[in-house]
């Protein structure tokens, strides 16, 4: 395997380990746990709670619990939910499909809309199309998802009856949430696209290309866009990780399955193994996504070699 791939894999493992450890101890800093809360609300006595916690090993010294958890993690065993005994890997697998579907479609919308808005704004500013694009991207950034989502539901579902509002089922159910979420994400992509494009338009190599007689559009797509896209790639990578990590507000609003709800409920219920499992997954996803982003940097601007590229400095 390529040495770069090995390096990144090791880095990913390190990231996953560090994230899970951080989550493990943070969860136990917050007082209480799922068992105590549920049992007390179910009518148990303190003695019952203590007995149950001891049986589940929640009373063992922290280091013991931690080592046991790591040992399981290495074997691929993410443990079981404290509240419903399901294996954490099953819980995550059940919800991840819906999250992935939403993430992919929302990202597509975000890329198309964001890149378009940002480019239009960069190229046409200060004329009207530029200003309009700017306003739209600003609206995308300053409107919380629960607002744009509610309005979308009111308009397209309740009002016009065009699209189903809730549920995870098929593509039809994906349209509204993907559009709403995608629009929201497009805001940051549009802004950074605009900023990057305006910067790189005037640099030397663009002038050189134009001097060579290349048409403006080709100059734009083949030179300006490619280097200017580096910060955009960074933002897209961030948003990909964010979307794949579960978007709880969108899931709640549109009554969809997804990792976001799983995580939020697990955090509030203090269901440790589930939180730890989702954090491990998130860490792996972010590692993967950053590696892909770095690869893209290299592809977009051949002068840049991010990994192993030491020719720039001493």
């Amino acid at each position, binding site marked *: 395997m390529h040495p770069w791939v090995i390096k990144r894999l090791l880095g990913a493992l390190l990231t996953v380990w560090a994230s899970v450890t951080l989550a493990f101890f943070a969860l136990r800093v917050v007082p209480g746990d799922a068992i105590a809360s549920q049992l007390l609300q179910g009518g148990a006595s303190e003695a019952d709670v203590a007995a149950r916690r001891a049986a589940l090993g929640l009373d063992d010294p922290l280091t013991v619990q931690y080592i046991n958890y790591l040992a399981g993690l290495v074997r691929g065993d993410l443990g079981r939910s404290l509240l419903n005994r399901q294996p954490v890997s099953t819980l995550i697998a059940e919800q991840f499909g819906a999250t992935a579907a939403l993430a992919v479609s929302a990202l597509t919308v975000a890329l198309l809309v964001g890149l378009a808005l940002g480019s239009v704004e960069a190229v046409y500013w200060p004329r009207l199309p530029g200003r309009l694009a700017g306003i739209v991207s600003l609206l995308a950034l300053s409107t919380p998802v629960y607002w744009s989502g509610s309005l979308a539901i009111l308009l397209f579902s309740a009002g016009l009856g065009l699209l189903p509002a809730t549920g995870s089922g098929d593509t039809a159910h994906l349209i509204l949430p993907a559009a709403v979420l995608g629009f929201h994400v497009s805001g940051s992509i549009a802004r950074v696209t605009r900023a990057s494009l305006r910067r790189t338009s005037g640099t030397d190599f663009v002038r050189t290309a134009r001097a060579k007689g290349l048409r403006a559009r080709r100059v734009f797509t083949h030179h300006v866009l490619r280097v200017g896209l580096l910060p955009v790639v960074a933002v897209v990578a961030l948003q990909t990780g964010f979307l794949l990590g579960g978007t709880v507000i969108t899931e709640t609003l549109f009554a969809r399955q997804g990792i976001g709800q799983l995580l939020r409920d697990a955090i*509030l219920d203090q269901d440790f193994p589930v939180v730890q499992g989702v954090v491990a997954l998130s860490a792996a996803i972010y590692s993967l996504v950053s590696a892909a982003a770095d690869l893209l940097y290299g592809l977009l601007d051949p002068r840049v070699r991010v990994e192993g590229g030491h020719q720039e400095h001493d």
Partner: protein
Amino acid sequence: MKYLFALIPLLLILAACTGSTPASSLPEPRIVYGLTLMPTGFDPHINASSELGIPLRSVYDTLVYRDPVTAEFVPGLATRWELSADGLSYTFYLRSDVHFHDGTPFNAAAVAANLDRIVSPDTGSQKALFMLGPYNGYQVVDDFTIRLNLTEPYAPLLDSLSQVYLGIASPTQLAQYDTATYQFHQVGTGPYRMVEYVPGDRLVITRNPDYAWGPPFYTTPANPIQTIEFRFFEDPPTRALALESGDAQVMGELLPVDAQLLAGNPTQRLYPIIRPGQPVQFMINVRRFPTDNLSVRQALIYATNRAAIVDAVFQRFAAVAYGPLTQTTDFYSPDVTTFYPFDSGQAESLLFAAGFTETDAEGMLALPAPNPTAAPGQPTATAATDQSGSVPLRLTMVIPPWSQYPAIAQLIQSQWRILGIDLEIRQVANFAQLREAAAAGDYHLIGITFSGRDPSLLNQFFLTAAPLNWSGYTDIELDAYLNEGTRQPDPAIRQQMYAAAQRRIMEQAVVLPVVDYANLNGASTALEGMAFDAQGWFPLLPNLSLTESAGP
């Protein structure tokens, strides 16, 4: 860049494929019922959420039922029952004509298998086990007779046995699936059978054609609903929208403002149900200055305009609460309505009498600086004083995010401010944090409310050594009333005991009761027979029918 565009259609196709098979193969008529929160699990023997009872109440039968109107206990899977003279054993005589959805015959052994499961430590029951109280095993007397034993008399047992958490499941099915996976393959004897449970998405039940042993209040309409699909609507504003758009035919926990809108809508009907158990209330910390003073506590209740809260926060879809139990709870005592009606004048004089005679520039009350010549018996404070040495009337209230506590707290803050009481509100995120705040002790009021038909739930809050005794109030007589009320099966004695308990709690102003919370259910007018059981939460699904094809 080009590659990206090529991938998109591929990915979209992938996305579309993650959808599961539609339920078009299930029998009509079909409705969608909106649940409002996603319980962590759907196993009635294990999980504690009341939400799971909404579908599962109709999948299982229980040994006894409670009539939704009279609240009396009527036969269920048991035709009759006897209580021994010492109150320590209940003998149940079971029906012999019942079978489970999977064909397994119902008998005493089946009940035994269920009890075994509930008490087994491997099961990890979060509620059902504790509903059995001082349960001490069973004896199978014969094929259709079983005796349950207790270590001490326990009056709430029948009420427990009438609830879905102690529903009787097929022993064959219980043996086949472990405690983690049974929830996906539930088998009972009820009027509906479970088809599938997709976590986070839906739970589907269909009618059981063989059902012939229901309680008398299960009517069988001419055109009953064959399939009910339960979906989750956790976001409150979308609930009413889903109802209006036809995404759901029934929806629980509508927002009060939406219920207002619905009341004017000819295609929807509102079914408000007052929740039995505790009202939305605050426990008052009797161990901390100044709420250690009875007059101050009483003043606080007098100072709270609860009717205004019902108006603003609940749009009149609730009732003012006067005591520690709501009006739909067993053995609720109407005497409590005589305690502390809204009277700001009375509040002021009580606070003045308690020593808060000073008023600062903003109108806030304070206890004047201790005077060396003051009469003995003047309240002394360990609370913070300001520069002049006087002690301001400053209170702290801890609240959870549910049951509209934040809105209620803010209104109370505003109301008390007019009288010169400075209230600080601290909101916590979950029950664990609430408990933590209670353990820390630096609060004067803390919001907590449990639901349940049987008043023995008060034991958790008011017995001297109770785990949730967050007011810190200890009273041997109150302990006696509550304990006797729990032990004595005779309803007349229970009535006396709980009346005394409610009176004592209110005399001592241990709680600030605010509102009898109403669960605002909405349903399409096409739905006939909509009614709820004695516990208030759970719909009588077998009685539902559609007058026209208004399904999804």
